[in-house]
């Protein structure tokens, strides 16, 4: 038994707490260090720190520490992730898809959080020789990199990855991007012009309401009318267009009552002006158009996240392999040009891009991405390796059975796209509201006209028109987009990127939450879950033997020894054993680490000294530390939780038992196709949380798909939301944010309803004048606007307390 007092210390790089029993600097030389020397939580963080130090970029830390409240995103880098293979980025096919001129590529980066990141990333040309210029766009979380002629994008991507910003190349469909930029600029111009004119119209309106008479009043009326022409035509154009489109589809949307109110208002005012009357609504209508345009723009610019399906490069169907060109001669080639029957070698650590038959040798592969199975599979001559498996170790030669476009994986991707396209059309709250709204207002207006039909038809019509104008549904047009925009922004701050406001509305009615197991509920990385050793020096031997091995289990053993504070023993030479494992010689002893035969769920490894076992370790996929807390929260919040895993039943059952899932809530050995089926069968209010390619179809089938940190590009494309932090902590926050947005919106609906009832009553009684409209309409808009803003502040303080 070991008894050590826990010391609290923080990682120099990612600032996470180091809670291992003995805190020491874990520099690779193994030297113990005193105070003042940086401490690290893991080898990944240490490596990034090393890179920064080497290039004299350590002021990154000064910058970051200067804004702690903004930069709360942990930047932990797992050492396994640092060896990700980006060679596909050097292929001509990639350059064609991702670059307009062959030298300029945009990457979506994970983990960018504050000015320190901007500073570091824009310094890229200083320490990555292949880069000429780097330009960051923080709002979109992208970087545009220009390479020097002949530079390698795989090298650039690897550098970015090693710094802890996992890059995803974005397709540059030049025309789409140009179109989007132009649309954004046009929207801004529309808002600017509407604002300038509305401001000036207001000056006229105030003096008119203030009692201007005679020639002056006439002049001001004419000028105000002229100024409102561009606002109510050019400015309000998007509403007319959208209303028209929705009428053509015979589906009322929110723009129909808005466009109608504007048109009726303009007509009434023009007729009144021609007759020398005073029923002029130009000012109120212009103000309305300006407010509507602004709140829509806000929501639109926040929703534009670059992660839309059409923008992300597909990383699964490409890759580089070694192909036998003549007998015994191997050359690197792109997987996309492979033919059936080719003999290929796959690089250790990369994804297998083809379905292949093992021709010679043996290998270990991991199918977690494809099936969710966490354990490695041993394959030998005659076995088939499916595309999407990660090649863990071995020296086998594969014969191509199916090219990248023909594999089951490619089929899953196609199915995912099909499901995403046919995702049931969703009726927005605002559109639903608009339908009731129109029905009520028109019934009232007809009632008013009929009531006055005999006595005074003109008066009846004027009252009905006033009713339609003043009850314009600004809550749907202004408060809903605004509340949604606030929620998306808040979620982004908590580490969730939300692709569209629809997903928030869908979260309100969520009833079932489905979790993938591997890499979602668990870390997806091999970890030592049980150990048995007598001396600290045994761990030093273990670390010395394993620290330079790339195998995930070797890395997990190294990580364990390091966090336990063991200094590596320096071996002269280390040999790999043919049966798996390594051996080394020092001080007259031969030490070996090799697998132990076992029947358990997890793999066991023993440390041998001259063939005598001195320590043993059990390695498995560990459950994330926060998983249980998150699940408890969700269950308390009234949600049903389920496991939907592709892993083997005993492993899933063990995990389910630990996390309190009942038998009926646990499904194991699911294929990707079955996952999607279960979700479709479970009804429309399901949320899927997962990571792998095997979850992509499920994301598309679920009403909300949430991809966890480190997901594949294909999952990012299919999901509606994406976690930017490597944990599940943000999921409860996400539900809270969605629910608080809902209550804010309903409160605003109540506000707006009371305003509209008051204004409607005035109009029906014939008391409605343009002055009343000018006071009531902006007041109603302003109330809902402030209420939407205020609700967020209340929420933040509530969060700070808990």
């Amino acid at each position, binding site marked *: 038994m070991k008894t050590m007092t826990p010391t609290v210390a923080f990682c120099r790089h990612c600032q996470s707490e180091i809670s291992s029993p003995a805190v020491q600097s874990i520099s690779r030389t193994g030297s113990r260090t005193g105070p003042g020397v940086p401490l690290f939580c893991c080898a990944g963080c240490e490596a990034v720190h090393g890179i920064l130090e080497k290039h004299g970029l350590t002021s990154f830390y000064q910058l970051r520490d200067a804004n702690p409240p903004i930069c709360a995103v942990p930047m932990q880098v797992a050492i396994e992730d640092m060896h990700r293979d980006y060679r596909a980025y050097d292929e001509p096919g990639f350059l064609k898809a991702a670059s307009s001129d062959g030298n300029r590529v945009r990457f979506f980066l994970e983990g960018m959080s504050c000015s320190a990141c*901007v500073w570091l990333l824009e310094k890229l040309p200083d320490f990555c020789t292949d880069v000429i210029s780097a330009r960051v*766009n*923080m*709002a979109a979380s992208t970087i545009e990199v220009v390479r020097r002629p002949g530079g390698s994008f795989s090298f650039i991507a690897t550098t970015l990855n090693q710094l802890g910003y996992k890059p995803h190349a974005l397709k540059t469909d030049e025309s789409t991007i140009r179109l989007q930029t132009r649309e954004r*600029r046009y929207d*801004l*111009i529309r808002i600017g012009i509407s604002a300038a004119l509305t401001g000036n119209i207001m000056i006229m309106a105030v003096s008119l309401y203030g009692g201007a008479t005679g020639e*002056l009043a006439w002049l001001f009326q004419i000028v105000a009318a002229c100024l409102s022409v561009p606002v109510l035509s050019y400015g309000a154009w998007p509403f007319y267009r959208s209303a028209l489109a929705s009428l053509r589809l015979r589906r009322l949307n929110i723009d129909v009552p808005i466009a109608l109110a504007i048109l009726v208002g303009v007509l009434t005012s023009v007729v009144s002006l021609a007759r020398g009357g005073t029923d002029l609504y130009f000012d109120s209508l212009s103000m309305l158009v300006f407010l509507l345009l602004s709140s829509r723009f806000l929501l639109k610019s926040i929703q534009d996240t670059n992660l839309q399906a059409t923008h992300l490069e597909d990383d699964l169907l490409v890759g580089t392999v070694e192909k036998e060109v003549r007998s015994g001669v191997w050359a690197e080639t792109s997987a996309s040009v492979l033919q059936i029957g080719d003999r290929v070698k796959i690089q250790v650590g990369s994804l297998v891009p083809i379905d292949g038959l093992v021709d010679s040798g043996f290998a270990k592969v991991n199918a977690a991405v494809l099936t969710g199975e966490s354990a490695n599979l041993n394959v030998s001559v005659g076995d088939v390796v499916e595309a999407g498996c990660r090649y863990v170790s071995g020296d086998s030669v594969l014969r191509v059975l199916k090219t990248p476009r023909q594999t089951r994986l490619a089929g899953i991707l196609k199915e995912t796209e099909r499901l995403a396209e046919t995702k049931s059309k969703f009726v927005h709250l605002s559109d639903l509201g608009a339908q009731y709204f129109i029905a009520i207002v028109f019934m009232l207006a007809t009632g008013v006209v009929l009531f006055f039909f005999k006595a005074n038809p003109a008066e009846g019509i004027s009252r009905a028109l006033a009713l339609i104008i003043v009850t314009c549904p600004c809550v749907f047009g202004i408060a809903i987009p605004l509340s949604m925009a606030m929620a998306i922004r808040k979620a982004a701050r908590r580490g969730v990127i939300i692709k569209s406001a629809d997903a928030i509305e869908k979260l309100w009615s969520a009833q079932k939450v489905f979790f993938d197991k591997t890499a979602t509920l668990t870390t997806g990385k091999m970890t030592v879950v049980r150990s048995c050793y007598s001396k600290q020096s045994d761990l030093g031997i273990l670390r010395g033997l394993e620290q330079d091995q790339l195998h995930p289990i070797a890395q997990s053993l190294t990580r364990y020894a390091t966090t336990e504070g063991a200094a590596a023993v320096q071996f002269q030479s280390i040999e790999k054993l043919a049966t798996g494992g390594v051996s080394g010689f020092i001080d007259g002893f031969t030490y070996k680490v090799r697998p132990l035969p076992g029947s358990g769920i997890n793999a066991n490894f023993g440390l041998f000294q001259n063939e005598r076992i001195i320590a043993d370790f059990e390695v498995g996929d560990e459950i994330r530390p926060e998983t249980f807390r998150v699940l408890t929260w969700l269950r308390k919040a009234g949600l049903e939780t389920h496991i939907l895993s592709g892993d083997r039943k005993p492993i899933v059952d063990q995990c389910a038992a630990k996390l309190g899932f009942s038998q009926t809530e646990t499904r194991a050995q699911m294929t990707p196709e079955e996952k999607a089926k279960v979700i479709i069968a479970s009804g429309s209010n399901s949320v899927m949380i997962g990571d792998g390619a095997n979850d992509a179809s499920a994301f598309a089938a679920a009403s909300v798909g949430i991809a966890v940190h480190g997901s594949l590009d294909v999952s990012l494309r299919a999901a509606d939301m994406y976690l930017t932090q490597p944990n599940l902590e943000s999921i409860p926050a996400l539900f809270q944010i969605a629910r608080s947005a809902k209550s804010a919106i309903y409160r605003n609906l109540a506000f707006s309803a009371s305003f509209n009832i008051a204004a409607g009553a005035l109009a029906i009684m014939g008391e409605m004048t343009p002055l009343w409209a000018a006071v009531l309409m902006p007041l109603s808009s302003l109330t809902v606007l402030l209420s939407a803003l205020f609700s967020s502040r209340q929420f933040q303080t509530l969060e700070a307390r808990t």
Partner: protein
Amino acid sequence: MNIIVLLLPIALTLAGGFAFAFVYSSARGQFDDLETPAHRMLLDSDIANESLKGQPHE
């Protein structure tokens, strides 16, 4: 009244001038990215230069 006839065009010209300036700068992409320049501006001055001390200036 006469003064209004003079002031009104002046006010409108002023407003028009600002509106034009806004349209011009939007069309040239001044407002495409509203977040990053704010950070970049902070960096170019103090700490960033400090870290380059001792290195030859480009």
